[in-house]
């Protein structure tokens, strides 16, 4: 691929991860470049979330190396470039005392080491993030009272407030209705195309974003990288590997046309 001369955002070499004498990830290597939109699919328990956690330094691999912007994770300092929305984000504790604005403000927290008084520019960025994710009208609303789709967008707005260069989203669609999901995918597409934000999207439902993604990683202990997902999504190899997902891909495609 033509981007190969650039320094990748993520450069992962020979990652292995085992837990309780079970092999979760085996010899995983990958590179992620600026501006890509990558979907990661795979069966439950196949190691998708573990891989994301290893990329973020939340889980230590048994062996192998992860470099972020050319630096080892421990030496990496510019975490504001990374926006992470974990799987559990949509299951927020309903009683947690936070309005949408409180949550989005967290996105600029890492910039402060002392008194957390926001600058004009930061306030503006918070408003912009809420506007982009269509939650500005909800800023006074408690997160516990939001619908699944609204909550999901609020979480992404939080990640956007730090002006990230890459968004890592771990199945943020759980409990979100189809209409909200479509709206969400359109927003992601816009972030990727118009703002050049790299997206790494872990999902079990790749069909609906098939036209947007640049590459597809399938993770089931080992990683298979598909450089032209549109062709791969319909190929027999995929059917054999991920029968259910491929089936749903065709269904979505069918609905769209």
């Amino acid at each position: 691929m033509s981007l190969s001369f650039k320094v990748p955002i993520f450069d992962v070499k020979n990652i292995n991860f085992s837990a309780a004498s079970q092999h979760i990830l085996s010899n995983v290597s990958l590179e992620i470049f600026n501006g890509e939109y990558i979907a990661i699919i795979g069966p439950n328990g196949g190691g998708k979330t573990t891989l994301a956690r290893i990329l973020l330094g939340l889980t230590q691999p048994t062996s192998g190396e992860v470099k972020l912007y050319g630096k080892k994770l421990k030496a990496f300092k510019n975490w504001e470039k990374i926006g992470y929305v974990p799987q559990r984000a949509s299951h927020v504790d309903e009683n947690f005392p936070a309005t949408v604005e409180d949550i989005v403000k967290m996105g600029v927290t890492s910039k402060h080491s002392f008194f957390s008084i926001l600058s004009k520019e930061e306030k503006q960025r918070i408003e912009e993030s809420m506007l982009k994710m269509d939650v500005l009208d909800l800023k006074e609303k408690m997160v516990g009272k939001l619908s699944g789709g609204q909550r999901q967008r609020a979480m992404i707005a939080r990640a956007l407030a730090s002006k990230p260069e890459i968004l890592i989203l771990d199945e943020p669609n759980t409990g979100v209705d189809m209409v909200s999901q479509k709206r969400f995918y359109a927003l992601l597409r816009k972030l990727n195309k118009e703002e050049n934000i790299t997206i790494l999207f872990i999902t079990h439902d790749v069909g609906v974003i098939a036209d947007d993604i640049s590459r597809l990683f399938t993770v089931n202990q080992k990683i298979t990288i598909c450089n032209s997902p549109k062709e791969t999504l319909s190929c027999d190899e995929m059917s054999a590997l991920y029968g259910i997902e491929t089936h749903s891909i065709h269904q979505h495609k069918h609905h769209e046309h």
Partner: protein
Amino acid sequence: MFEMFEYDFMQRAFLAGVLIATLASISGTFIVLKRYSMMSETLAHSALVGVAVGLVAGFNPLWMAVVVAVLSAWMIEYLRSTFALYSDAILSILLSGSLAVAIIIVSLGGAFNNSLFSYLFGSILSVSQADILTIVGFGSVALLLLLLFSKELYFIAYDEEVAKTSGIKVTLLNYLLVSVVAIIIALSIRVVGSLLIGALMVIPTVAALQFRVGFLKTVLISLFIALGSVIVGMTLSYYYSLPSGATIVLCVIAIFILSLSLNKR
């Protein structure tokens, strides 16, 4: 009603009470949100070991309580992050263990008397000028640290892992929070007693959470509830000769029940 302020000891008692209510409720918000409520009970008992050492060895018991509570908080935080699965068991072992050590020290030192008793149940009316100075000194540092890092601590309470991937020094700030809480608890046991301080730290926040409002409002409601309970509790305790710590705790529980019924879903 204001005749009670004619006495120096009542003025000191109110001042100490208001300071402690402020410190306990603000730090309590983070404690409750991080699900560390049980830790406040454990630290209150560890602080008693410091009091016991102070009483027997002739050091300032409040200072010793601060030192032992902070060391104990570090140990708890270390064990919690290392053996996450058993963190509640660790807390209960440390709680009863500390109380046992405190009682043994005091009884070996021949000082098992009213002094320790007053730290168990609180003795706000015997707060001295030196106690006030200690509370103001340590308390201002604790409050300043909480305010300086309130946004970061709030983010960590919301989601520790996301905070970590946003570049926040989660481990360091967790240690900072438990140290601040340990200091506040050690200072508070003079006023409400080690058996009752957990209530003043946790209940105002739990009551405030019933109103389902944003973070800042929750902190302010919690502060208001704590101050109200301390002021009403101490006034009642003065006029009806009731023990101050227990009266304060019953007041805060009454407000909690009221806020539950006001915010019935």
